[in-house]
């Protein structure tokens, strides 16, 4: 007898369907598995046989062949245990073959027949909906991942025997759907951090607000202990709420690496802060079966590199292309994985080796020392930074003051207003933020009156700006104008934008 059921595999953060075929025929008793399988799938043979036997079902001594197709793709992961078992059982006639049609199975088997949790259930469910599968059967512990995918029936199963019975009797256990919108709303405002707690850094806060409003990449420069990390850590408190689509897009990534915590989606925009000893593979992703790196884990959120000068140069260099293209393609001999990497890049650095430049009481670095230190982050990665903000050393007297200046709530409001102006402006262009304006569209979206053009040209000359720097100033000026809810870019907007240029 022959049967086939569907399952799925993950490459990068995308799922694609795999067909699992089982054939039971006469001849010498054997159990063979083919289809370019990794060792964990080959081991499935023993798990499947023991799980079936321990579910009080006898496997007759026949010649069993399991095939996973397409045969040219290398398959990995332990999620194929369940589909192999189901295919075998329906080939043996224990499961009614019709009941498996149009369904996708995913799950790992324990020797006692219980179905274990696997990674990547969310992207598999999303793929199943897209490909028109009728339903997906997932492990009980992964049920919550199925609960958020609308327009697809998802059933959960705890043990193999339970699944066999409910399949045959059409009494599968459906996973109830959850509406993510209210959940995201509830989660949005809960945070222990607040910019109101950051004292005496109004300039840096202002720069941060501009950066977030236009989704500009940001660099903090300041002395140790001046609050660079604190400023960065507060950024999530002023980012806008994730939409349901964004939440699924981000949660899908965390599902693949098994980092969805507490049976819940990723409800806050991610904030990733890898340590400076990290490798380029860990940062941009990689491995023989490509796994997402930090830049993908920061998708739709913030990638924060503290002490960026301490990172190895090639690690920093590896960020250039993904930051520009908002995605990363990792090519392997057999396949290619494209992973999203649409994050806001936030860097922080000291201004010099000792960190206290230009404070004469504390810093003894020579001009050459300072230039050498900054040269580490100069060049291509600085080119991708739109806003360069300084954090000040704050006098003790100012620290004891009560909440002063802008709070996160206030900043959120201003940012939301500026972003809705941008959404309106870019409705037909396919971008969402000022930072994404293409060079050829600059004149359309960031027009300058003649006197302001002269001003910018003067600054271009005086400050030795690059062409890229020139356009960055224009985009940032556009964002500042949006924050001030001004239709045109005014002189003060332009001057403020120039003050955020890279001076190193």
């Amino acid at each position: 007898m022959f049967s086939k059921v569907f399952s799925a595999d993950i490459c990068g953060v995308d799922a694609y369907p795999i067909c699992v075929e089982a054939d039971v025929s006469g001849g010498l008793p054997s159990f063979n598995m083919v289809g370019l399988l990794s060792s964990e799938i080959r081991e499935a043979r023993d798990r499947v046989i023991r799980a079936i036997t321990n579910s009080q079902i006898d496997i007759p001594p026949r010649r069993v062949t399991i095939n996973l197709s397409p045969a040219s793709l290398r398959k990995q992961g332990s999620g194929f245990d369940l589909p192999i078992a189901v295919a075998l059982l329906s080939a043996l006639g224990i499961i009614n073959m019709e009941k498996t049609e149009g369904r996708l199975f995913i799950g790992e088997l324990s020797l006692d027949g219980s179905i274990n949790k696997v990674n990547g259930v969310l992207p598999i469910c999303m793929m199943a909906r897209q490909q028109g599968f009728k339903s997906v059967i997932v492990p009980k512990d992964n049920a919550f991942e199925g609960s958020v995918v609308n327009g697809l029936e998802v059933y959960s199963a705890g043990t193999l025997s339970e699944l066999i019975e409910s399949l045959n009797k059409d009494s599968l256990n459906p996973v109830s759907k959850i509406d993510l919108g209210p959940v995201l709303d509830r989660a949005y405002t809960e945070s222990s951090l607040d910019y109101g707690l950051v004292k005496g850094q109004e300039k840096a806060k202002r720069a941060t607000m501009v950066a977030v409003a236009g989704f500009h990449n940001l660099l903090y420069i300041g002395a140790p202990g001046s609050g660079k990390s604190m400023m960065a850590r507060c950024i999530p408190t002023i980012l806008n709420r994730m939409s349901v689509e964004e939440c699924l897009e981000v949660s899908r990534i965390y599902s693949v690496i098994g980092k969805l915590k507490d049976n819940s989606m990723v409800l806050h925009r991610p904030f990733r802060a890898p340590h400076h000893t990290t490798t380029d593979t860990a940062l941009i992703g990689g491995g023989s079966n490509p796994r997402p790196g930090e830049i993908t884990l920061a998708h739709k959120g913030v990638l924060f590199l503290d002490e960026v000068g301490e990172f190895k140069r090639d690690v920093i260099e590896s960020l250039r292309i993904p930051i520009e293209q908002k995605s990363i393609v990792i090519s392997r001999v057999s396949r290619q994985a494209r992973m999203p990497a649409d994050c806001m890049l936030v860097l922080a650095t000291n201004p010099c080796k000792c960190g206290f430049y230009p404070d004469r009481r504390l810093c003894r670095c020579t001009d050459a020392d300072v230039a050498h230190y900054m040269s580490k982050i100069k060049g291509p990665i600085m080119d991708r930074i739109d806003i360069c903000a300084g954090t000040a050393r704050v006098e003790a007297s100012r620290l004891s003051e009560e909440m002063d200046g802008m709070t996160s709530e206030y900043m959120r409001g201003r940012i939301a207003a500026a972003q809705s102006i941008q959404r309106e402006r870019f409705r037909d262009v396919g971008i969402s933020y000022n930072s994404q304006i293409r060079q050829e569209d600059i004149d359309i979206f960031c027009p300058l009156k003649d006197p302001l053009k002269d001003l910018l040209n003067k600054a271009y000359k005086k400050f030795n700006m690059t062409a890229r720097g020139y356009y960055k100033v224009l985009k940032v000026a556009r964002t500042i104008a949006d924050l001030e809810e001004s239709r045109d870019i005014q002189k003060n907007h332009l001057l403020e934008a120039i003050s955020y240029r890279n001076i190193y």
Partner: protein
Amino acid sequence: MTTDEYWYWLCNIENVWQQDLDRLFSIFDSPEEIYKVQPYQLKELKILTADQIKALYRSRNEKKIVEKLNKLYKEGIRFVHKESSDFPERLKIIEGCPYSLYVKGQLPDNDRHAAGVVGARSCSRYGREMTEVFTKELAVRGVDIISGMAHGIDSISARAALDAGGRTFAVLGSGLNVIYPRENIELYYEIILKGGGIISEYPLDTPPLGWQFPHRNRLISGLSDILLVMEARKKSGTLITAGFALDQGKDVYALPGRVDDPLSEGCNKMIADGAGVLLSPEYLIEDFLGRYAPGSREKAEIIFAEDEQDIKVIYLLLDRDGMDINDIAAKAGRPLEDVAAALTELELKGLTKEISRGVYVGTK
């Protein structure tokens, strides 16, 4: 051949150096005499080695000499020798006065004040700023600034003099057409363009060899009336220059620094040994020029137009130590974004400088 051509020939013989010429001139009176002397006579004198004598006779090609000198003029380079009318008077009296100079642009006037400014190549921010302050005060009063166009203090003083509208001269340690360090190419041409000059005692194409730098330092001090030492380590080329200046009888001023700062060690030592102290620009000007006329800082009233009063308020708050923009805004009682805009505008006018992100100093 003309006197100039004889001189040019004599100063461009391969491997014949200044000390060889010194010895030749103890016997001969002019280059022309040397040109016409016979090989066996020279050999008998035992002043030059056999190789040098060979080179001397090989180079006696009148056509080539004239051609080369004309080529020099065509490139806008002047060849000045000890007997030229425009050879700097100040140099004639120093020990080791070169027999000839190559000049692009002007030479310092004999009757105009000149100050040499020297210091460490890798200087601190303190050294940089003080160099700017002192140089500007001198330059706006018409004092020529002499330096070596090296990295650090040298270039900073040249730049500051130009920015203040003054004249500056650079004495190179390489051939005139070898611009070293390379980054200073812009400065090189600006010095010439703004009425100053580039000077070298070395023939064209001479590479910047290490020993030539301390050697040319005697010309920096020699061309100056006073020497300002901005920052110097205990053992440094700067101190060599100061040594030359003292030997030449020039006044030397040193910039005091922190006791435990290696970059100030040389300066502090010089002060202990009796050098003048750069207490303040006012003090220097009075000591050097005899009187102090108010500088440009007081001109703030004139710099700003009627409609620029709001940025003037910000400008008057600034100091030389550097103020954080948050503090400036707090003092001015104005919103940050306005202050940021005002500071950028001031910077465009050249009245402030952002020395580190968000930290501004007032200039002028």
